[in-house]
């Protein structure tokens, strides 16, 4: 009976939420001649990233889904980042864990809050002019003010409400049968902006969207209504601490032009562009902290 159930359908093709995992290495760098090899592991609620830096330069990273076991996810991510580089855990001088699962990174020298790491990482990725960082993660959203060195001056966290988070977007991708990588572009293909969905909660927003589909709304329009609701919610949240130029968005939602463009319009500020993976900001910040901690220890 149970076996028959498993054969009912092939669920693989139905996983629209499954975003692309990736890894990268800089072929021009060699860790063997480096003074300090540091790593940062960001175990988030939805995704886990590991970044390896040699003397403060990004050398390799991996970006994958977090499983049910945080230490295991951290191990997997660092192993994947090491792939084909010849690096072993013993070659790391220091490692910092960050994110929700930061205390569960088995090989970390220290755990540092993801707020500090995202500010530091954004400073590295977008340059020292960044003053406001918006991290749109899998299950929460943080707004951070920082100085030219990437040090946090103020932060605001919305760690209760799932409105405006990556997981909400995954739920919508699944509902509409549109791949998560395409939802942003697709939401921009509307002639006229529909009214945003009114619900704050992802679960209720989803049922509202089901109603709109039943009314005959095309997918593009439903996505537009959700993306603009998300942008509006974030703009509302940002009002509390204000947005200072330059402005950068990190996290998975930064890859969704449907939300980013609407948010930029609402705030009247364009976020800085980057060619790097916006999801690795936290891991980069952690690796930079690891390097700083190691150098500090060596001086003593």
């Amino acid at each position, binding site marked *: 009976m149970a076996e028959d159930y498993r054969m009912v359908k092939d669920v693989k093709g139905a996983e629209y939420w499954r975003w692309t995992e990736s890894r990268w290495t800089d072929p021009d760098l060699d860790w063997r001649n480096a003074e300090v090899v540091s790593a940062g592991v960001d175990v988030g609620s939805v995704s886990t990233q590991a970044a390896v830096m040699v003397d403060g330069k990004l050398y390799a990273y991996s970006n994958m889904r977090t499983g049910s076991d945080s230490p295991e996810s951290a191990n997997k991510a660092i192993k994947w980042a090491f792939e084909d580089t010849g690096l072993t855990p013993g070659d790391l001088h220091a490692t910092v864990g960050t994110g929700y699962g930061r205390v569960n990174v088995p090989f970390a020298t220290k755990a540092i809050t993801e707020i*500090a790491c995202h500010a530091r990482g954004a400073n590295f990725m977008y340059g020292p002019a960044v003053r406001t960082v918006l991290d749109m993660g899998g299950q929460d959203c943080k707004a951070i003010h920082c100085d030219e060195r990437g040090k946090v001056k103020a932060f605001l966290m919305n760690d209760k409400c799932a409105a405006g988070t990556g997981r909400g977007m995954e739920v919508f991708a699944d509902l509409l049968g549109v791949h998560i990588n395409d939802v942003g572009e697709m939401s921009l293909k509307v002639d006229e902006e529909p009214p945003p969905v009114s619900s*704050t909660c992802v679960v209720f927003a989803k049922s509202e969207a089901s109603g709109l589909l039943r009314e005959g709304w095309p997918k593009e329009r439903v996505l537009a209504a959700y993306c603009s609701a998300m942008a509006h919610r974030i703009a509302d*949240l940002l009002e*509390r601490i204000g947005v200072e130029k330059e402005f950068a968005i990190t996290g998975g939602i930064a890859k969704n032009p449907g939300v980013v463009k609407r948010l930029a319009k609402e705030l009247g500020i364009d976020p800085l562009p980057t060619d790097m993976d916006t999801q690795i900001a936290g891991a980069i910040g952690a690796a930079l902290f690891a390097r700083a901690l190691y150098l500090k220890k060596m001086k003593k």
Partner: protein
Amino acid sequence: MLANYGYKDGSGDYFITVDTDKCNGCGACVEVCPAKVLELVEDEFDIDAETEVAAVTEEHKKKIKYSCGPCKPASGYSITDLPCVKACESGAIDHSW
């Protein structure tokens, strides 16, 4: 640094703000809070910091609306005489209500 702990949901803003530059880690607010919402933690944002700073506990971060309910204006408090605000000599604590 201004640390805003809490959340915003469909019903309103629920944030406690701790100015870590002003906080001297004396712990007076931790003592007086009737709901035990605050605690002293290592200053994670400043690696060189020597004193601890006040922060909202992990347990209460997601339910400030309810935890801090007894200290809201509806219960007869004004922002200036909340126990934690009053106890803080350096004026490091602020609220969104």
